[in-house]
């Protein structure tokens, strides 16, 4: 125990003493907001200090969300496939949106968030594009920042490294943003193998990832802007064996292309965005051990028109009209599958100023050609009870369509699968005060009643999707941000706790062993905290995360132990001429906690990471963008 305490406190004391010797230079980074919680859009968004993101810069979205959100991230190991699991529901319930386009693969509805480098993410944004699912993670790559050239490099003791370059430049009316990354993960992961009962290194789950992003924005005049964007990431990753296995020769090769063309009209009372986009995924799976080779190719073409119309100071009307064309081909479908979807969404908002209450009603109707036409409705009421207190209420009726894999995957697909329907109730109290000492606390209680919940369950050696007749999810979330700014140092404390219970309450099969049992991979208790202290050029970040017991089977016969992880990082920023240098040293999983987010898949033990970033600021600007 003593050596653990020493491991924790000695670097802290060292850093605190070092602070006093530094010059007073403050480097302000733009604020970043991550909307990434298992809650409806615009509610309880997780606001993160940009420094926390900065500490993870060389990683992917999975690393950030694992440590800093109430979402449960399922991952097969470091640098491998990871997906969002909120309230026990799979990742198809959670759209990932970049610059207004949907990232999720149309075949399985899932986006591997390990393939989303944080280096590409400039800001994140709340978005209400896909309200039918009730939760989403949205982010953008923005061009409207000062011209600069950026370079970063990271290396850690798992023999993983990555480099990235970023360029922002304005040329007359054209704003250019380009970035690229390359990472090589040897994934020499130290971990304790609970099956073999020995500490081993997983050294053969190597992965590499490369990608680039380019956005161009051209200002036609004061109101009209043309924009195009391209996102391209490839990954070549070995699938790590489970702790129960000796060998894995499975390799996954991913190619993800996202591109869009957009016209934006930004008038005084009307904002209109017309966008056409393509989402293309190619996934090759090759397991030489079992002689299995599979190709999965999916494309989603989407056209959408979004408007926001300010009718008067009380009334705002938002709408989205969308058309999607999906085409999928895989060795596991009997033939090529195509699907056409149309949807319309209208969201009037009324601000009843006299009673300090805002009302928003959102209606979404989706038409699947030759299929169902479900609808979603959301009513939100926000009341300012006082200058520092807001009460939010939400009642919604949502739906989730089965994915193409749910219906057509062979073997196992279930053509009789029904769309999932759910009713959600949420009540939130927000207490806030901003000043030298700022406090923002959001306490939220929720209850979800889902009918025909779609889950994949094992049946013999096959997994197959099925409808659970009814599931209930209830719980509460508390998020608190506390900051104290004074002439000597700044402190930001963020903390969140979620209690959640998601159970199967009714089944079509009276002998269903999952009845009255918890849905797998839905921790009842989940919390994270981060303490960020900064003074002059130095800052330190201490992060703690706790994840409670999770069941890995529907009959609760197997469970994953609760775990807590502590990370510690030190950052030093200095400027020489026009080059801003940023050095971050981190020790992750200080207590070397053995843990798994998927049964039998080892996650990394204690390791060190160093990150260097050099930014050339105030690049010569050709011409300021005219707005």
């Amino acid at each position: 125990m003593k050596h653990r305490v020493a491991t924790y406190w000695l670097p802290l004391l060292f850093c605190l003493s070092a602070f006093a010797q530094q010059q007073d230079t403050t480097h302000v980074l733009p604020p970043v907001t991550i909307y990434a919680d298992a809650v409806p859009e615009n509610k309880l968004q997780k606001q993160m200090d940009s420094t926390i993101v900065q500490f993870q810069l060389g990683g992917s979205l999975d690393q950030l969300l694992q440590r800093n959100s109430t979402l449960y991230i399922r991952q097969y190991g470091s640098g491998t496939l990871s997906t969002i699991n909120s309230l026990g529901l799979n990742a198809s319930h959670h759209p990932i949106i970049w610059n207004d386009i949907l990232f999720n693969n149309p075949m399985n509805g899932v986006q591997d968030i390990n393939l989303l480098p944080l280096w590409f993410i400039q800001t994140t944004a709340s978005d209400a594009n896909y309200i039918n699912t009730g939760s989403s993670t949205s982010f953008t790559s923005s061009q409207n920042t000062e011209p600069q050239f950026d370079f970063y490099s990271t290396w850690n003791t798992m023999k993983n490294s990555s480099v990235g370059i970023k360029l922002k430049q304005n040329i007359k009316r054209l704003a250019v943003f380009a970035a690229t990354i390359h990472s090589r993960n040897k994934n020499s992961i130290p971990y304790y193998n609970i099956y073999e009962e020995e500490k081993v290194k997983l050294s053969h789950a190597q992965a590499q990832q490369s990608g680039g992003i380019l956005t161009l924005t051209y200002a036609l005049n004061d109101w009209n802007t043309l924009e195009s964007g391209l996102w391209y990431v490839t990954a070549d990753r070995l699938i790590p064996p489970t702790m129960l296995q000796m060998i894995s020769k499975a390799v996954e090769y991913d190619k993800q292309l996202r591109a869009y063309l957009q016209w934006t009209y930004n008038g005084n009372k009307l904002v209109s965005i017309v966008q056409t986009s393509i989402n293309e995924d190619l996934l090759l799976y090759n397991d030489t051990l079992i002689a299995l080779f599979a190709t999965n190719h999916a494309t989603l073409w989407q056209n959408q028109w979004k408007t926001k119309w300010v009718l008067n100071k009380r009334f705002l009307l938002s709408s989205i009209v969308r058309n999607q064309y999906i085409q999928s081909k895989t060795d596991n479908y009997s033939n090529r599958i195509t699907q056409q979807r149309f949807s319309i969404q209208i969201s009037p908002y009324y601000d009843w100023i006299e009673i300090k209450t805002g009302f928003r009603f959102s209606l979404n109707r989706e038409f699947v050609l030759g299929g169902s036409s479900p609808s979603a409705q959301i009513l939100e009421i926000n009341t300012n009870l006082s200058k520092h207190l807001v009460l939010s209420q939400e009642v919604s009726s949502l739906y989730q369509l089965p994915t193409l894999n749910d219906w057509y995957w062979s073997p196992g697909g279930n053509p009789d699968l029904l769309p999932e329907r759910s009713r959600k109730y949420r009540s939130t109290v927000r207490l806030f005060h901003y000043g030298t000492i700022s406090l923002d606390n959001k306490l939220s209680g929720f209850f979800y009643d889902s009918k025909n919940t779609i889950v994949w369950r094992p049946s013999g050696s096959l997994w197959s999707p099925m409808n659970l007749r009814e599931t209930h999810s209830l719980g509460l979330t508390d998020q608190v941000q506390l900051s104290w700014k004074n002439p000597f140092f700044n402190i930001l404390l963020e903390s969140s706790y979620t209690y959640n219970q998601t159970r199967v309450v009714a089944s079509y099969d009276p002998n269903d062993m999952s009845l009255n049992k918890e849905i797998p991979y839905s921790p009842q208790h989940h919390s994270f905290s981060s303490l960020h202290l900064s003074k002059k050029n130095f800052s330190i970040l201490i992060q703690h995360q706790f994840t409670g017991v999770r069941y890995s089977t529907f009959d609760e016969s197997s469970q994953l132990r609760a775990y807590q992880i502590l990370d510690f990082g030190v950052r030093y920023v200095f400027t020489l001429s026009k080059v801003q240098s940023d050095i971050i040293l981190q020790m992750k999983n200080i207590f070397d906690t053995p843990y798994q987010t998927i049964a039998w898949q080892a996650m990394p033990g204690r390791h060190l990471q160093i990150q260097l970033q050099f930014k050339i600021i105030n690049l010569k600007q050709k011409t300021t963008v005219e707005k």
Partner: protein
Amino acid sequence: MNTIFTNLSYLVLLSILFTACKPEKPEEPETEQLFTVGKTAFIINEGTFNQGNTEISYFDFEKMSISNNFFSSRNNSALLGDLTQSMTIVGDKAYLVVNNSQKVLILSMKDFKKTGSISPMPSPRYFQQITNSKAYVTDLFSNNITIINTSLNTITGAIPLSTWSEQMLVSGSKVFVSAPLKDKVFVIDATTDAIMDSISVGMGANSMCFDKNNNIWVFCSGSSGANASLVCFNPADNNILKTIDAGTTTYSSGRICTNNAKDSIYFIKDDVYRLSINDASVSATPFISVGSSSLYGLKVKDNYVLITNAKDFVQKGDLSIYNKSGVLIKTLEAGVSPGEIVLY
């Protein structure tokens, strides 16, 4: 003199006292006979893929009772691994083939404790002792049969087979290997470790057994367009003696086996069927029907027929004991996906 005698007497008494007080040397505990040979069966609970919940159940014929999680209870709660496919008892050792953990575990039959392991093998299925120091292990995916040195517990070679190899039987110097993806039983020369012949049987050849005439019976599960069948051949000359149509079936491993006298054949084809080795056809009426297509393991011993039901292969299955007339005596809860039954 008296004094000397008295002193000597005290000395003797004292030494007797000390001898008496000397703590007794703890006796080596006698190795408890865990199993009554001939009255024991082991149930191989395969578990669920990637869940690591495979286990062994121990059934006592005399007490008509079952002990679940028997491996972990005898091995300090150790995990057996993922998907145990089969168990072969050779002398005082048991070889557990743990399919998805890609290894063969070796246990002592005296105390059922793990004594070693042999790995890695891509997807091992069944173990067959060939000589005192050599064994074969069939494999689902590797297209090879792995050769093992059982004295050193090491892998020494492989026999290329270019397909999934399943069960094995030894007759003289011949090893007969069923191949579920083919309509063949391969014949391997155990002295040269090379394929010497193949016998054309029905599609989906998997489980095999000897009858009282030392002929080999193979259950073939069939395929789309080909019915399941029972094929009997003479291992001496590899000639097929009879082929019996077993009708259509969803895939079944058959678990073909005989009674003690080896004059009746039993197999699973959704239900349990029985026929004499002299019959030319299978009765349309099953010997035992439980209205479930999840029957997964079968063995016949003395007056009992043991059948496992894997239910949905996710929840715990059970072991049912029937008498020789097919009347249910008892049903006991087993582990997840109870499959092969091994008699001891």
